[in-house]
């Protein structure tokens, strides 16, 4: 009996703590301790010392990007064909154990992008962007009647997802991916040369800026904010630098398309996956160039007269802020501003690499979350694998062999890092368990 009483006292205490944390839920929370317990196996993840992980929910479908509201509730966007009211899933942890007991959904469109800003939840399909007004708890007030703020975006047969990010001045940034690999006359066809100029860039292959609060905008109301970006899935607004950062998916199939210039190994290792610090007017150079991660140079694409070595001297094209190994498919980018993790993580970038397919016959790479430290507003270049083990296997030979594929990243009000998996629909929460000071 005594034991029961003390247990229930502890339970009440935990609930009370949780309630307090809910009330004080914001990023300025000072406590570095979290009351949530990691799973015994850290949800299958390998993490740095002091970190733990738990599965918040599982088997949710193709969970792409996600966002956590001030209450710690998660909204995640489902990709592809979705059933009635199944486009956005909301996860609510009823008892404070970190697991989502209450799973609800709304929205009739598939898509990837989702974000919260200034009292609205923003979500994208592959052609439109909607927003839902939130109440003071950051719950959606009317899930049936969102405002359509952007419509008529270009959608091709590839790179069709629209990722979104918002700045602090009332603008929303939308990725419109190029519906092509390298703007060849015949897409992905051996030896086919590039179209000159690439006509795709007028309405895709870049980032467009729109107003966050204006209804039914399309290309005439938008600004092509950055161009020459083949496809961006992971992007984030860096509030410290007041600047947009994006992760580009580099082009595929150098060997398949130009076997005389690139062997299997060169094709597996080129081009780099690249991060760009975007300014209005940035041109990353696709499809004319790619970035070679071993030479650290912008190289003329073989479709446009390149021979695998010829450096681009065109001053129009920007250098990346940092380059990563090829084909790892960066799908999530998040600047960490929380207080839960040790100081070194503050204002650095987490990147979720979905994992490659375009390295065969060499083993596939990626399927992990990396951390990139930033100093004085620039990446140090010394990136490290932060969370690994999503694939569940030592070596991924075929993409199908990976159990989970990290896709979206989000930060919770207590500074926890959330990772979505769009293969099995698992939501991970990564926490730091030790006081740092």
């Amino acid at each position: 009996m005594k034991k029961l009483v003390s247990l229930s006292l502890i339970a009440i205490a935990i609930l009370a703590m949780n309630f307090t944390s809910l009330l004080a839920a914001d990023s300025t929370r000072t406590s570095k301790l979290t009351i949530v317990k990691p799973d015994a196996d850290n949800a299958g993840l390998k993490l740095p010392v002091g970190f733990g992980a738990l599965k918040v929910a599982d088997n949710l479908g193709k969970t792409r990007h996600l966002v956590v509201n001030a209450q710690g509730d998660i909204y995640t966007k489902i990709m592809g064909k979705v059933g009635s009211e199944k486009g956005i899933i909301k996860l609510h942890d009823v008892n404070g154990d970190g697991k989502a007991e209450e799973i609800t959904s709304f929205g009739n469109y598939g898509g990837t992008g989702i974000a919260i800003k200034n009292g609205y939840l923003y979500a994208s399909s592959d052609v439109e962007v909607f927003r839902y007004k939130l109440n003071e708890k950051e719950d959606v007030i009317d899930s049936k009647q969102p405002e359509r703020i952007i419509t008529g975006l270009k959608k091709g047969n590839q790179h069709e997802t629209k990722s979104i990010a918002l700045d602090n001045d009332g603008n929303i940034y939308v990725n419109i991916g190029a519906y092509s690999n390298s703007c060849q006359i015949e897409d992905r066809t051996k030896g086919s040369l590039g179209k000159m100029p690439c006509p795709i860039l007028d309405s895709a292959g870049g980032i467009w800026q729109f107003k966050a609060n204006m209804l039914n905008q399309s290309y005439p109301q938008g600004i092509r904010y950055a161009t020459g970006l083949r496809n961006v899935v992971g992007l984030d607004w860096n509030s410290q630098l007041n600047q947009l950062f994006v992760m580009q998916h580099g082009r595929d199939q150098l060997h398949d398309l130009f076997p005389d210039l690139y062997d299997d190994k060169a094709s597996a290792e080129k081009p780099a996956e690249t991060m760009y610090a975007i300014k209005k007017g940035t041109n990353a150079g696709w499809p004319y160039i790619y970035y070679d991660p071993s030479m650290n140079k912008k190289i003329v694409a073989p479709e446009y007269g390149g021979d695998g070595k010829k450096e681009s001297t065109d001053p129009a094209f920007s250098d990346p802020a940092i380059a990563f190994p090829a084909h790892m498919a960066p799908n999530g980018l998040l600047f960490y501003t929380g207080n839960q993790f040790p100081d070194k993580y503050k204002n650095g970038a987490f990147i979720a690499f979905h994992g490659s397919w375009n390295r065969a016959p060499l083993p596939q790479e990626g399927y992990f979350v990396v951390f990139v430290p930033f100093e004085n507003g620039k990446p140090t270049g010394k990136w490290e694998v932060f969370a690994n083990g999503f694939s569940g296997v030592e070596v991924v030979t075929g993409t199908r062999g990976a159990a989970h594929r990290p896709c979206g990243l989000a930060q919770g009000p207590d500074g926890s890092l959330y990772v979505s998996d769009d293969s099995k629909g698992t939501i991970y929460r990564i926490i730091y368990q030790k006081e740092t000071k």
Partner: protein
Amino acid sequence: MKAIKIGVLTIAAFILINNQYSVASVQPGVPNIKASIARGKELYLLQCLACHQIDGGGVPHLNAPLDGSANVKGKDKAMLIKIVLNGLKGAEIEGESYSNVMASHKDLTDQQIADILTYVRNAWSNKASQVTVAEVKAVRAKLK
């Protein structure tokens, strides 16, 4: 560079085998499915591997899987031949969409296409009848 050499050797070997096979196939009896599968595997590694992957599993949402696919194992061989010849774009297969473009492979010979398809119909967990040169020839003639 090494890979190119290997590729050249493979092609050379293929031509040799292929010539032998052509001679053999003139003789009465069933075409040798084992030899076709072996040639098809070599071609698969050169032509198909990048997208469809070593395990035939494809890439979710991008490149369709071949292993276990009802279409690949099915009776409609003409459809498979047509896909290799014409390529495929915006495919929706068994409720799943695949967004990468498959290029046309009409430059491959009838024999090569027959071998590749015979291989993918009999690789991994798949088991299905052979695709013959005559079948490829017939489909190609109709497309012209």
